[in-house]
């Protein structure tokens, strides 16, 4: 996990759905190179700033509980990953969290997080430090089932390794 300081660029409420992150009408677009343009498409201001590259990589979105609820569409993850944003949320919906792990989007479960737009955060392995406020908040570690995939560098690499083992090519 990055130890550089990251700026909070947006605050979001509970229950941010995949329809907000990546509206269904763009679902025919699947390539990770093309999905980033529709990131938060209906939050027009944020979408514009992202498209204009006004938001640097490793910036943070701080959200409430149940971030990514709704559809299993993986575009909701690749669209955010394309901008290299980090999501610090009080909680995530299951499929979104799994997709993030699989694709390598940085997601941090931080149930007590307090932050405002513009705050500087430092994301450590076990806590998020809000440097601006001088306060820190504990991180819930990923379930061990998921950590193994992160350690392998994502699900593609993990499965490829397993495939090669299976075919005895190792």
């Amino acid at each position, binding site marked *: 996990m990055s130890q550089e300081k990251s700026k909070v660029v947006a605050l979001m409420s509970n229950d941010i759905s995949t329809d*907000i992150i990546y509206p269904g009408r763009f679902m025919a677009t699947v390539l990770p190179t093309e999905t980033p343009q529709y990131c938060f498409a209906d939050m027009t201001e944020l979408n514009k700033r992202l498209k204009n590259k006004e938001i640097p990589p490793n910036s943070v979105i701080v959200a409430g509980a149940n971030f990514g609820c709704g559809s299993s569409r993986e*575009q909701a993850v690749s669209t955010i990953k394309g901008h290299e944003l980090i999501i610090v949320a009080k909680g995530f919906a299951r499929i979104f969290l799994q997709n993030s792990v699989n694709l390598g989007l940085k997601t941090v479960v931080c149930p007590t997080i307090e932050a405002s737009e513009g705050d500087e955060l430092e994301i450590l392995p076990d806590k998020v430090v809000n440097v601006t406020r001088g306060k820190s908040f504990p991180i819930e570690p990923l379930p061990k089932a998921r950590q193994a995939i992160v350690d392998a560098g994502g699900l593609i690499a993990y499965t*490829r390794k397993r495939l090669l083992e299976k075919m005895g090519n190792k």
Partner: protein
Amino acid sequence: MAMTLVEKILAKATGQPSVKAGDVLEPQVDLAMSHENAALVINQFSEIYKDTGIPLKVWDASKIAIIFDHRVPAESSKTATNQKRIRDFVGKQGITKFHDIRGDEGGICHQVLPENGYVLPGSVIVGTDSHTTSHGALGTFAFGIGATEMASVWTLGTVLNVEVPGTIKVNVNGKFPDQVYPKDLILYLIGKLTAEGANFKVLEFHGETIKNMSTSGRLTLSNMSVEAGATSGIVPPDEETLLYLKEEAGIDFKCELLKPDLDAKYDQVIEIDVSKLSPQIACPHTVDNVKSINEVMNIKVNQIVIGSCTNGRLDDLEVAAKILKGKKVAKGVRMLVFPASWRIYREALKVGYIADLMDAGAVIMNSNCGCCLGVHQGALADGDVSLSTTNRNFKGRQGNPNSEVYLCSAAVAAASAITGIITDPRGIN
């Protein structure tokens, strides 16, 4: 050790005598379902094989199902091209459980699967669709996954690193009052649990009401379990399940029906008596914003939608047709009906429901997801209100972030079509 139903299924799928919540397992997959998003799965699948020198071959072509339903017929050349790529892949890999855009065997994936006998009690089903939970209605452990995870399943035939979920037992008793349906029950439960109340858990449905419920009603419950965050919603299989398999899918299921142990450990037990339940409405913009109908009556609606994998089955069309027979859809209201499969469409034609609905002024659409996910068909204008039997009302869900979606049963939808305002079906007829 005493086990819940999902624990039993996972013990079987991993060849172990017992498993418990929290264990990390790699279960065998009995069925892997995708729809148009198979286009993305194919990309990721090729990515896994890249530079390995191993020829691209799915682990078991007979266990993969692909159903076109999300944008049918294609709304854009982009979708058509994706569908074409999938069709080519299906042909090359020899995938047989493929349902193309056809009037004889097509429909919405979560209806096509059980109808065709692809869903068997005690099995593990994954799908690149969050409402894969639906298939728990037949006693399977069924859950949604992303496209990359599906590519991994196509490669290995197992789901990697599954943590056995804890289970919430939902005991439902009492007889449904007139014009109150399983949809009202599940909306009520989601309102109680909240949108994340069952996150990472399974809902296991029990009680007299469930025992007496048709598989169609059970599909509605399991379908919407994910709206409380649940990994899966499951009904222990019983006589009704066997009857459904025989009559609907032509399958004489002879294997043992797995049941949860009586002393299984549950994270929580919820008791519901439906005998006093009233029609429920999920208000914008979250599915857990559930109110009893008397709190939202008289809201003006512009579009009524009856359909989807939640409530587009024959019993839903019957309820709507009975309410609308000889009546008219209010002027200025658009009523769209999406039968959940072409089989249902044909049956509804035979028994006259389609004619009744058309005579009332409804537009019968082809069987597909339609406006449920706001990609094509039935777009909403700014400021429009949609009253829909589908399962999600998130901002923008039906294609326009400046519109509102209310969710309800087929009875509420039909009664409201007549008046043009949200109407209690108990007062009609």
